């Protein structure tokens, strides 16, 4: 295990940083260019667009996913009989590969026969272009919410069940309503759990790729070209941008490392849920 960890994780991480100082193509010879890939990065519009797109994507999908996850968990935690079937169905989208999720959503968002526009037509509204230049990134974020909300819902259910009941009894005796109990008890008690969920789903959000490839192929234009998508293109579609690809990957790695540290700090001293 440790050998695999070193060879296929530790070394590649260091390798990414090494490659980010090189220039050339995947198969040809490369030369050391120092930090040039980083210094020319801000001028590289196709690269900065990808970073911006990815951040917008995460900003849209992550908060929605978490809020929806909490709401579903609040409902699920209180349902006794029949809860299993809800859990099963709400959780199932999290097992769908991104490629397949993208395909499924192509059938929802198709302008001609997609479910969404059919619903709009049925109520007499104008059909919408769901994967247009302004809407595509939002639609991809929606796919992500659909895929991940169930995961966090189940996660939060376990956290809710673990909360001390006595506090709620005391609060109820003091006349606190359902919303007050949620706002003043549940949320503060779940603070660490929520932070954990926020960080982890941000890390996932930064890696968005599959759905963008299937649904929009990075477009229209560059509207849904994300970091990983751009890196993949730099490596396999350009003859000599491998250094730039590695520099971009390095930034992603650093961002993820920082987020990991935040998460570890959040969990330190607490043993999570168990």
């Amino acid at each position, binding site marked *: *295990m440790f050998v*695999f*960890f070193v*060879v*296929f*994780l530790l070394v*590649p*991480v260091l*390798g990414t940083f*090494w*490659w980010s100082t090189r220039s050339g193509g995947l198969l040809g010879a490369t030369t050391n260019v120092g930090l040039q890939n980083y210094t020319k990065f801000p001028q590289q519009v196709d690269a900065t667009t990808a970073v911006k797109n990815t951040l917008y994507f995460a900003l849209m999908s992550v908060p929605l996913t978490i809020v929806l996850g909490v709401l*579903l968990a609040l409902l699920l935690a*209180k*349902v006794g009989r029949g809860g299993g079937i*809800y*859990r099963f169905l*709400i959780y*199932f*989208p999290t*097992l769908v590969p*991104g*490629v*397949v999720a993208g*395909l*499924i959503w192509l*059938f929802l968002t*198709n302008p001609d*026969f997609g*479910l969404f526009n059919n619903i709009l037509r*049925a109520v007499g509204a104008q059909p919408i272009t769901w994967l247009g230049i302004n809407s595509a990134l939002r639609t991809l974020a929606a796919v992500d919410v*659909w895929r991940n909300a169930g995961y*966090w819902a*189940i996660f939060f259910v*376990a956290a809710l069940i673990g*909360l001390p*009941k006595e506090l*709620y*009894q005391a609060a*109820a005796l003091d006349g606190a309503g359902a919303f007050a*109990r949620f706002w003043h*008890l*549940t949320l503060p008690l779940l603070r660490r759990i929520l932070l*954990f969920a926020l960080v*982890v789903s941000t*890390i996932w959000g930064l890696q968005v*790729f599959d759905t963008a490839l299937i649904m929009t192929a990075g477009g229209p234009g560059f509207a849904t070209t994300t970091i*990983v998508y751009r*890196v*993949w293109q730099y490596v396999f579609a350009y003859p000599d941008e*491998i250094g730039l690809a590695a520099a971009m*990957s390095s930034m*992603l790695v650093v961002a993820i*490392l920082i*987020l990991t540290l935040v998460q*570890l700090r959040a*969990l330190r001293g*607490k*043993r999570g*849920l*168990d």
Partner: protein
Amino acid sequence: MGSEGWISVATIEQVERRSSAPRGAAGTILAREARRERRRRRLGSLGRHAALALATLVFVVPFYYVILSSVKNNNQIFSYPPKLLPFPTYWGNFTQLLFHTQFLRWMLNTLIVAGSVAALKVVMDSMAGYALAKLQITGNKIIFVLMLILLMVPLSALIVPLWTLIRMLGLLNTYWALILPALANPLGVFLMRQFILGLPSDLMNAARLDGLSEFTIYRRVVLPLIKPGLVVLAVIIFTDQYISFIWPLIATTSNNMELLTVGVANLHARGGVNFGLWSASAVMSLVPIAIVFFALQRQFLSRSLAGALKQ
């Protein structure tokens, strides 16, 4: 949870009040209050079920819509208004998918790779977890911290060095290219370490006094005790492999080595517009994972909890 506790308090309160209350008018008021309370609770439960049913519907409808499309031919897909029931059923998309593409080969590849990774990881991670949890080995702490730091780094951020490494090893376009990098993920080691930390050390010390080797202790004492954890771990790893995409995409170059996700993506990219075939491929791709999920629901649902067990 909160409301259940609250309910029990309310009942106690009522019982107390009732016992001290004089019979007659006050008693009927209390009875009425209790009735109202019960009704309110039932309404609340009904409301929750309604809200959940609605939410569940939203989660499920996309599947239903794509299933509907998969049993239509390419003209019917475009017709408006769309039919809401899958009858009459057109099977052409599925026969084309199963017999005129390499779909079944891709599925086999995915099952082979995901199965081997899960099997290998369960063995390796439980051993490594045991070593980290219970053995005094120099360097344990450094390895642990390193793993913790790199826990969340995904393969998608490492494609340049990984691809060159696998190419150097001459393994591109083999099962090994798909299996080996997946073995590096440290999550399972943490889960196993956490599980094993919870076992009493006396048990292992006693076995040691009996002269058993560390490996025998691992196999005979530790493994049986962590069996439930092993199943959860296998489920986590299998699923992660099942849905993995970018690494399999770049590590395979020939059609018959592709995994399910890659094959389906290429079907979409290469074959020209064929909505019927695409929907059939989406539906068929979900069949194996749905079966496994149905069989191991409990373990899958604890997949969500694994994250919290990490520290």
